[in-house]
C-alpha cells in the first residue's frame, strides 16, 4: 500500500532540495497563522495559497478532492447548523428557524480554515515518503520510542495491507457480499481478529529476528537530513508571509 500522495512517475522534485523538517515547521506555522485569521478575504487568500502549493507540487486534483470529501461530512453539520445557532442579523428564515448573517460568516470561516490547513498539510507533508517523515520527526527530538513505533508501523502497514487485501479477495471469491446484517458483521469481526492474531505472531518473529542481531534496546537511524541555507531562507520567507497575514488581519 502506498501512503504518500504522490505517484511515482509524476513525482515532482520541486521540494526535494529542502529539508523535510522545513516542511513540517512550515505546515505548523501556516496552521497556526490560519486559525488566528477571521477575515473572509484573508482566509480565501490562504486557501488559494494552499491550493497553489498543492498544484505546484503536483498533487492530483481528483485525489485531493476525494480526500477532502471525507472531511466535509463534519463540515456539513457545522455549515448547516451554525447559521441558525449563532444569534445576529437575520438573513433568511426557515420555518421557526432564523439564519443569521454572523452565523453564515462563522460557518464560512471554519470551512475555509479547515480546508486551507488540510490542503497545505497534504501538499507539504502528505507527499513525503512516510519513512522520511519518521526520520524528520526523529530529528525534531520526538521521543525515540515514539519514532521507532512510527517507523515500525509504517514498515508493517504494507505487509499487513497485502494480507488484508488477499483475504478480502478470497472472501469475494467465495461469493461474499457485505450487507447490513449479522453475517457481515461477524465475518468482518473474524477478519479483524485474523489480522490481529497473525500480526501478533509476526511481531514475535520480528522480535526474535531482532534478538538474533544483538538487539539491545534501540534502532540506529542513519539518514540525517541536512539543514541548508536555502532552508533558512525559505523559513524566513514563510515567517514573513505569516507575519504579513497577521498584520493585515489587525489593520484591515
Amino acid at each position, binding site marked *: 500500500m502506498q501512503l504518500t500522495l504522490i505517484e511515482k512517475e509524476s513525482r515532482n522534485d520541486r521540494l526535494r532540495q529542502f529539508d523535510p523538517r522545513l516542511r513540517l515547521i512550515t505546515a505548523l506555522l501556516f496552521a497556526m497563522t490560519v486559525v488566528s485569521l477571521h477575515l473572509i478575504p484573508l482566509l480565501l487568500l490562504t486557501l488559494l495559497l494552499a491550493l497553489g502549493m498543492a498544484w505546484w507540487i503536483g498533487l492530483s486534483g481528483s485525489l485531493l478532492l476525494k480526500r477532502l470529501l471525507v472531511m466535509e461530512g463534519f463540515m456539513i453539520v457545522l455549515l448547516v447548523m451554525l447559521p441558525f445557532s449563532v444569534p445576529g442579523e437575520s438573513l433568511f428564515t426557515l420555518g421557526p428557524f432564523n439564519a443569521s448573517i454572523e452565523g453564515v460568516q462563522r460557518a464560512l470561516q471554519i470551512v475555509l480554515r479547515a480546508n486551507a490547513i488540510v490542503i497545505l498539510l497534504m501538499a507539504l507533508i502528505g507527499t513525503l515518503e512516510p519513512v522520511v517523515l519518521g526520520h524528520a520527526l526523529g530529528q525534531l527530538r520526538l521521543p525515540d520510542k515514539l519514532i521507532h513505533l512510527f517507523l515500525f508501523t509504517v514498515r508493517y502497514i504494507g505487509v499487513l495491507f497485502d494480507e488484508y487485501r488477499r483475504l478480502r479477495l*478470497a*472472501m*469475494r471469491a*467465495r*461469493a461474499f457480499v457485505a450487507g447490513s446484517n449479522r453475517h457481515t458483521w461477524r465475518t468482518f469481526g473474524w477478519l479483524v481478529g*485474523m489480522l490481529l492474531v497473525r500480526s501478533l505472531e509476526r511481531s514475535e518473529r520480528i522480535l526474535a529476528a531482532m534478538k538474533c542481531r544483538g538487539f539491545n534496546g534501540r534502532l540506529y537511524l542513519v539518514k540525517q537530513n541536512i539543514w541548508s541555507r536555502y532552508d533558512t531562507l525559505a523559513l524566513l520567507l514563510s515567517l514573513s508571509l505569516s507575519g504579513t497575514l497577521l498584520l493585515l488581519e489587525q489593520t484591515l
Partner: protein
Amino acid sequence: MNEALITLQDINFGYPNHPVLSGVSFHLHPGERVALLGENGAGKTTLLQLMVGLHNPTRGRIHAFGRERRSEQDFREVRAKAGLLFQDADDQLFCPTVLEDVIFGPRNLGKPESEAKAIAEQVLSSLGLSRYADRITHKLSGGEKRMISLATVLAMQPQALLMDEPTNGLDEKAEQRLLEHLESLPQAMVFVSHDRKLVERLATRAVMIQDGTLIEGLMHSHPHVHTHSHLHIHAAGIDAGHDHDGSIPEHQHAHGEG
C-alpha cells in the same frame, strides 16, 4: 464438443503501471483439466482471478456459464459456479473453526444455516476430513489447511475448479493425498503448477503464459533413456528402496520425480 464453461476473448489486463496480460483468449470445456504454466510473475494468478471477476479487464470479453459477464453482479453468480483455490491457504481461511469456514461459502449463496451445515459436513466427510470440523483453522498444519481450503471451495458445489498451485508448500505425503482427491473429482479444472509431475498426472491439456500472452501447449508422451548420476538422501539404516552395490541400477520412474 459441448459448450465451454468459461471463455475469455482477447483479454487485456494490467495493474497500475504494470501491464500483465494482452490478447489472452481461453476456453474451459466440461471434463477438461487444464494446466496453466508460466514463470513467476507471468500472470497466472491474475488470469485465474480475472476468470471470476476479481479484476476488470481493460479490453475483451468474459463469457461464463452460459452468458457474458461484465458487472460485479454478473460475476457473483460465476464465483458460486467456479471455485477458486488461492495460492496461499492462509489467505483463504479466516473463520475460527474449520466447520465455520466451510459453511461460509454456502451461507453466502443464501443457504439457511442448517442446510449449509449439512453440506459442509457432507463435503468434509467426502474428503475424509470430518474429524477436523471443530479444529481451529489457524492452528492447522500447511497440508491440513490446503485440504480444508479445498473443502471450503467444494462446499459451494462449483461446476469448475480454479486452483492456484494446489500442492505448493506441501510435503510429499500431503501432496499425494491431495492429488488422489483431485483425480477423483468430476469437475472441470484449471490449475497452476510449477510441478511437472503434477501436470503429467492430472492435466489433459496445458497452456502457458509467456510475455503476457497465452499460448496453447502441446502435450505428448514418449519414452526416454537417461544416464545420469543423482544423490540419494535417506536416513541411515532405513532402506533406500534400492541397492548401492556400485553397479548401475536400472529402474523405471516418472521424470522429474526427484
